């Protein structure tokens, strides 16, 4: 009998393929989804001998989806959700095979029995575990490279929108910073093993084998995230691999009955740290104090001070907590996800529908995401496997017409005594700007991102050579990355953007008439509207030749992949100003030609590569592997386009040696491994080999007509090529006492050479143009990683676990372009120091009256500071050096010294304890960063700004050890010099995530006709400990004006029907 599913699926696939050929229409997408939702898995059996049974795991948990096959026949069945199965067998001589992923298959002769309680034993966790590697998978036990894996289940159900925020702290090797909490832009910058280059530091991101943006995939559809760290691991990615590689694998169907799962949560977001500002009375008092210091009359009278204090005339003497009044509290983030998964031996499917909605700090800001995924894998013939996967999403973002950066800029400036809003709710203004109007009256920016990732692969065993197979994969992606920033895989994808900017009217209070006249406008005089269409397409073709066989104790694996990838991007925009009709459509705008504008451009990229991997192992003890890539890219001149990036690695499983097995039986597994190799990185921009001219937009007006611009681009460098990274890694993996303790240690060293530098300092400033970059920089990066894990299950069912990871990475510039002024001064030399080491003057403290004579002049011998007259309470700097290397009595750039570590942390660690007992499970993830410094550039009254509460602690003759220098109406040039005074320790520790879940007992579930249900409380950024008190420690703007990181507390529900 032919299996019905198989027939059915073949028929569907025929149609699917037709659809693909006819243009990947949306109907294909729809068809697939309907198919998976409706396609029932039906069996019919007509045989005589009927047997039944139950399959359980060695933990006595019923297993659903276990395939039950009759040996030597196509007939099969699978267990239902309670582990039960029934099957008709031809006769008593039949043999049943029970197989299930992750468990050792079991064979059972039928005999006279008709009921079979079967217990499947899980395959040795470590030995059986398969990890995703570049262009394939490998058994974990045979790995000779440094790879970390995060399981999909660990990142699902966290109340975060952007996947980059789910990775940090979970495994060793990831250094990250999250610089913003703004919906749609809240991703973390991820660095694998820190920063190894002055160029682009972004790791390559591969989703299901293809370079794609991964940040907004549905977390519930992620099977695993694999971090490729060392040379051997990244070698298959050639000139994409030097910064490390993140491999995302999405879920595929699982053998078993259809399982429908719902997962959803609702969470409440608030800034992790709410920056506090002075109130109106404090502001006015502080300003008067500044006036006193300058001998100027008080800006605020005693009457005004009293009014600010007693709030009796709020429209004349307002007192606003600006930031707090502009921001909403407890904004909502919700997610709903429905997954269907199942399959038989012949065809497996997974489909998912996801929805996420995230509110911002103010009404107009929100982010909605709709994800849809389907994946079908079919054994078309005995030797042919076909996989079709479609992964689409729509992102829908809305923001006020004024950007968040500008809103925060204005919010930080607006002092508490400015009329943010009046008592009747009308927006007021401060120096011609309306902070409240910026949010609600400014119009909007509405961005839509459509992404569709399609791929189909066919794998064919070649029966004439055992172990040989070929595979062809083609993918067509629509908007797989940001069109405006294709090289940054974390940039949001926007395919259509509409911006409607309206007048931002603001009002004043006229106390004489007690009216609120309209007095101004902080927006355009008349509405403006613009649209932008962005589109990118990527075509990737891969041809694989796979070989795997063993001869005696030798095991050989070979892989060759040929890959070709082309992308095309086009951008088009148009806009009009001076709208008389209040309807945002281009056609409704002014018809005057000077009110109409448009622009557009296109980009194209090409890449061709050949990948290989050869692995040999002997007796499960000794492993050797060679891999690499011959890679070509359009960036460079003909003749400089192709490069070869090889790597070698080796491993030795000591635990398989007799001397360990006999003497140390507690060592379950022990392996040492090492790798060495080269990889590359594209840096800079393409076409620097061409001497060329760039066309710009409007450049000048002649004859009252705007004319275009044409400028010389930088001078060509025909020899420009990629960066090269030489990486070494030595590691140790251990598993002791049967998994009670697992450990992984790695030491790595990388030397990046041929880094691109624009050699501006090698030509005079009079040269008048930049030179194209040249491959000349060298830097090293080394570090250490450790991962420790322990878990134990007590006999009473209590399970406790603890996972620790630690990453340290420190780089060093070995060769960079430097002027003599910095290179010849050992204090200022960049070479030999970590990249982005912070330099500035060394602050000694404050001047005191003892430093001045009676006339207020600095006493002789005090170094001269060139930034205007100084007074007691101003910052005093050290005269470290001079033109001759000796102190010269003057503060000049010769006195600059290193004052702080780079902003990117050198150390990231994670601590994750977990407990489960009966139905309860409880997991925490503490994540910390150390060895980083933040430069605090927040000054009171800077550029007419307000002041934070910290700034009330300023120097006075009676407060000599204040945090801030003497107060002035504008921070003085002397006190705002880049100096050690403003360096803050940026170390922090967070309770990054926490989750408490309860799984409802099965007995109760039966009544509800559900398979399982779990409810949970979860949180993100729940607690933060840091030296920086008034900002989040990951504050990304030195002046503090940025969209803060959010903490989220959520409740969720997970149901399997």
């Amino acid at each position, binding site marked *: 009998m032919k299996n019905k599913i198989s027939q059915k699926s073949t028929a569907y696939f025929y149609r699917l393929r037709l659809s693909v050929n006819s243009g990947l229409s949306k109907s294909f997408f729809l068809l697939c989804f309907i198919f998976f939702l409706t396609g029932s898995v039906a069996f019919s059996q007509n045989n005589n001998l009927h047997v039944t049974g139950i399959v359980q795991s060695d933990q006595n948990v019923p297993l659903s989806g276990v395939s039950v096959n009759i040996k030597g026949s196509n007939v099969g069945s699978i267990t239902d959700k309670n582990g039960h199965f029934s099957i008709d067998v031809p006769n008593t001589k039949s043999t049943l095979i029970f197989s299930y992923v992750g468990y050792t298959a079991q064979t059972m002769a039928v005999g006279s029995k008709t009921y079979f309680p079967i217990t499947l034993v899980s395959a040795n966790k470590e030995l059986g575990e398969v990890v995703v590697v570049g262009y394939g998978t490998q058994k974990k036990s045979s790995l000779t490279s440094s790879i970390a894996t995060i399981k999909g289940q660990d990142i699902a159900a966290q109340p975060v929108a952007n996947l980059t925020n789910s990775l940090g702290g979970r495994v060793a090797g990831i250094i990250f910073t999250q610089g913003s909490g703004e919906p749609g832009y809240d991703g973390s910058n991820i660095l694998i093993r820190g920063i190894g280059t002055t160029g682009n530091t972004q790791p390559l991101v591969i989703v299901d084998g293809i370079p794609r943006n991964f940040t907004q995939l549905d977390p519930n559809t992620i099977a695993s995230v694999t971090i490729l760290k060392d040379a051997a691991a990244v070698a298959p990615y050639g000139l994409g691999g030097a910064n490390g590689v993140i491999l995302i694998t999405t879920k595929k169907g699982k053998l078993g009955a259809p399982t429908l799962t719902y997962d959803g949560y609702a969470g409440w977001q608030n800034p992790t740290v709410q920056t506090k500002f002075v109130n109106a009375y404090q502001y006015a008092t502080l*300003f008067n104090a500044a006036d006193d210091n300058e001998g*100027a*009359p008080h*800006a605020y009278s005693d009457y005004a001070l009293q009014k600010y204090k007693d709030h009796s005339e709020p429209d004349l003497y307002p007192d606003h907590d600006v930031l707090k009044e502009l921001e909403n509290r407890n904004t909502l983030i919700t997610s709903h996800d429905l997954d269907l998964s199942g399959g038989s031996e012949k065809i497996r499917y997974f489909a998912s529908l996801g929805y996420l909605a995230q509110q911002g700090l103010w009404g107009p800001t929100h982010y909605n995401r709709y994800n849809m995924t389907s994946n079908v894998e079919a054994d078309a013939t005995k*030797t042919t496997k076909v996989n079709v996967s479609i992964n689409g999403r729509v992102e829908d973002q809305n923001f006020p017409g004024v950007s968040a950066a500008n809103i925060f800029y204005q919010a930080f400036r607006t002092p508490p005594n400015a009329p943010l809003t009046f008592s009747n709710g009308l927006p007021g203004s401060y*120096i*011609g*700007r309306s902070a409240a109007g910026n949010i609600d009256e400014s119009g909007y920016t509405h961005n839509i991102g459509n992404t569709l990732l399609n791929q189909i692969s066919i794998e*064919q065993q070649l029966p004439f050579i055992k172990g040989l197979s*070929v595979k*062809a994969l083609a993918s067509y992606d629509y908007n797989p990355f940001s069109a405006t920033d294709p090289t940054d895989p974390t940039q949001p994808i926007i395919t259509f953007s509409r911006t409607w900017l309206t*007048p931002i009217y*603001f009002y004043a209070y006229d106390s004489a008439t007690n009216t609120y*006249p309209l007095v*101004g*406008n*902080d927006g*355009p*005089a008349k509405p403006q509207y613009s649209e932008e269409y962005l589109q990118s397409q990527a075509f990737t073709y891969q*041809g694989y030749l796979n070989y795997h066989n063993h001869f005696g104790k030798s095991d050989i694996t070979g892989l060759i992949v040929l890959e*070709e990838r082309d992308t095309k991007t086009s951008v088009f925009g148009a806009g009009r*100003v*001076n709208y008389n009709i209040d309807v945002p459509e281009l056609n409704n705008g002014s018809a005057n030609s*000077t009110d109409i*504008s448009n622009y557009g*451009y*296109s980009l194209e990229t*090409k890449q*061709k590569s050949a990948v290989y991997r050869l692995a040999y192992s002997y007796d499960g003890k000794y492993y050797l592997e060679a891999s690499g890539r011959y890679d*070509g*890219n359009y960036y460079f001149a003909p*003749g400089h*386009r192709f490069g070869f990036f090889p790597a070698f690695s080796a491993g030795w499983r000591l635990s398989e040696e007799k001397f360990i097995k006999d003497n140390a039986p507690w060592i379950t597994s022990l392996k040492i491994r090492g790798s060495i190799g080269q990889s590359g990185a594209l840096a800079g921009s393409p076409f620097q080999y*061409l*001497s060329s001219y*760039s066309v710009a937009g409007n*450049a*000048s*007006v*002649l*004859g*009252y*007509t705007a*004319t*275009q*611009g044409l400028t*010389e681009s930088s001078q060509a460098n025909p020899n420009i090529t990629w960066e090269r990274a030489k990486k070494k890694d030595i590691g140790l993996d251990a598993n002791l006492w049967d998994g009670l303790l697992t450990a992984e240690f790695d030491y790595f060293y990388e030397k990046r050479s041929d880094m691109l530098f624009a050699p*501006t*300092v090698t*030509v*005079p*400033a*009079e040269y*008048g143009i930049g030179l194209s970059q040249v491959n000349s920089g060298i830097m090293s990066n080394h570090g250490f990683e450790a991962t420790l894990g322990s878990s134990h299950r007590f006999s009473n069912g209590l399970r406790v676990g603890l996972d620790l990871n630690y990453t340290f990475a420190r780089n060093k510039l070995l060769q960079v372009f430097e*002027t003599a002024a910095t290179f010849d001064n050992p204090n200022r030399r960049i070479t030999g120091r970590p990249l982005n080491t912070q330099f500035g003057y060394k602050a000694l403290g404050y001047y005191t009256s003892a430093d001045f004579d009676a006339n207020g002049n600095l006493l002789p011998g005090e170094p001269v500071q060139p*930034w*205007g*007259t100084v007074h007691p309470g101003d910052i005093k700097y050290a005269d470290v050096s001079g033109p001759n290397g000796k102190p010269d009595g003057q503060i000049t750039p010769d006195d600059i010294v290193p004052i702080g570590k780079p902003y990117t942390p050198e150390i990231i660690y994670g601590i994750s304890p977990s407990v489960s007992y009966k139905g309860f499970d409880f997991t925490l993830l503490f994540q910390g960063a150390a060895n980083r410094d933040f430069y605090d550039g927040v000054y009171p009254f*800077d550029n*007419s700004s307000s002041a934070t509460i910290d700034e009330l602690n300023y120097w006075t003759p009676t407060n000599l050890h204040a945090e801030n220098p003497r107060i002035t109406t504008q921070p003085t040039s002397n006190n705002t010099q880049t100096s050690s005074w403003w360096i803050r320790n940026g170390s922090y520790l967070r309770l990054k995530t926490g989750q408490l879940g309860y799984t409802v007992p099965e007995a109760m579930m039966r009544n509800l006709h559900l398979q399982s249900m779990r409810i949970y409380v979860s949180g993100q950024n729940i607690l933060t400990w840091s030296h920086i008190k008034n900002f989040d420690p990951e504050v990304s703007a030195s002046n503090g004006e940025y969209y803060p990181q959010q903490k989220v507390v959520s409740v969720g529900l997970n149901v399997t029907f």
Partner: protein
Amino acid sequence: MNQKNIKKSCLYLMAVLIVIGNFSCKKSLDASLNVIPGNSLTNASVWTSTSTADVFLNTIYGYLPDGNNEYDPFDNWSDNSICGYSWVVSRTEAQQAIYTPATLNFDQLPYTWSTLYTNIRACNVFITNVSSSALDTSYKRLRVAEARFLRAFFYQELWMAYGGVPIITNPLDISTQGDSVFRARNTSDETFQFIDSELGAIAADLPITAAESGRATMGAALTLKGWVELFDHQFAASAATNMQVINMGVYSLFPDFGSLFLPANNVNNEEIFWREYIPNVLGGRCDSYDGPTFTAGGAETSWGGVNPTQELVDDYDMDNGKPISDPTSGYNPQMPYVNREPRFYESIVYDGSYWYNDTIYTRQGIGSPNEIDLSDHDDATQTGYYLRKGLNDKITLGADNWNNGTSAQNYYYFRYADVLLNYAEAQNEAVGPDASVYNAINQIRERAQIPDLPPGLSQDSMRTDIRRERRVELAFEGKRYWDLIRWGIAGTNLNQELHGIAITVNNGVLHYTPVTTPGGDHKFDVSKNYLFPIPQSAIDQNKNLTQNPGY
């Protein structure tokens, strides 16, 4: 294995082989990665078409000073005005003359060393490539002359700011020229000679009237030449050159001084070289950068970037043509704004002036938002005055103007009044106050509707009158600082307290008291500040550059 499977396998193998085929030949492999960038042109395509070459030259016109987009104009570095807010370079850096080679920062002003050399390179690239191109000879003559004019203009700015500078007349290329790209400074005299001779050489190649307004003309070249000669104290030469412009007969003073600077009169016979603006496209922002800060309802419709000083105000004559220092002028310090000459009312917003649908009160004690800001707490005036000249209050002021650039008026680099004033000064210095000097200066006064200068002035008195006339006529046109430098009086005028006016009301009577004001305390070190320092970064990159004395 059945046939079907073999067939299938073959198909797959073919697919793989097609890909392998692509890798077979290195050359074709390279070629298969060819991508032609869509946004760039090559040497071959730029210099073979006049329309493309024109686009390159047009871009250089865009590098000329953008005077109507400055929120802290150069007059704030002089004794004419103070910026209404304190974070700008005129107050953080210029006021106390605390700029150093490491810190010198001109913000939006057009004197940045590396920027000027970028502009000069663009000129050199144009001149070199067009000269050697196969383009039409008449095209080459005209456009190369324009480019040489622009290059001379940029050298003029370098020379005034830094003195002698490296004179570079070819595009530098380190790969072919090696270390010779590291040029030493030419002397100030050599730099002057270069500018002067260039302008002399190309004047005849430029048209009397440009085909497109805003381009360089013969008049522009000669006016610039006369100006650098004046700056270099070559008085006789300057007088002769300026007389050449006068004798061209194409320029005359526009009858109405006040509206000369408004968009309605963008086309007039007085302008010689100027920058044009198109609102919303390449428009100006000066109307809401530099005008009176608060208007009706207390709305901030401008940043108040230019606050005229009492020192400037005192230099406006009475309407009888006499300076206020003249006891017979009729000036009453307690009624200071009565019967002043028309240019005062056309240039300055003072207490009680009308601006943008509002009366501007800078007096104290009546709760006016424009009250003189002696505590420096907002953008209100530091001096009790605001700028009117060159500003247009007939458009929507405020955010629309400063965000979108909606100002349309021209910015004049040179107008005929410059030529007359330059001539009068040069001739007075070279020869003395002859009739031609009177003629020139009185043309200015007649247009300003004030009586001629009295006859029989001594050379010194004439000098004083010319200087005051020049200050008033050219106020806020970016000229004053250079005048203080070349007259050698910066050590006095920029080394003192500048004043504002405190106006108090007592029983309905206004009282006027000059006061010192935040931002008014000026320093100028005569031992070094007559030249700006060469940026330290430029010296670091070129060991052949020597620093100006004192830095």
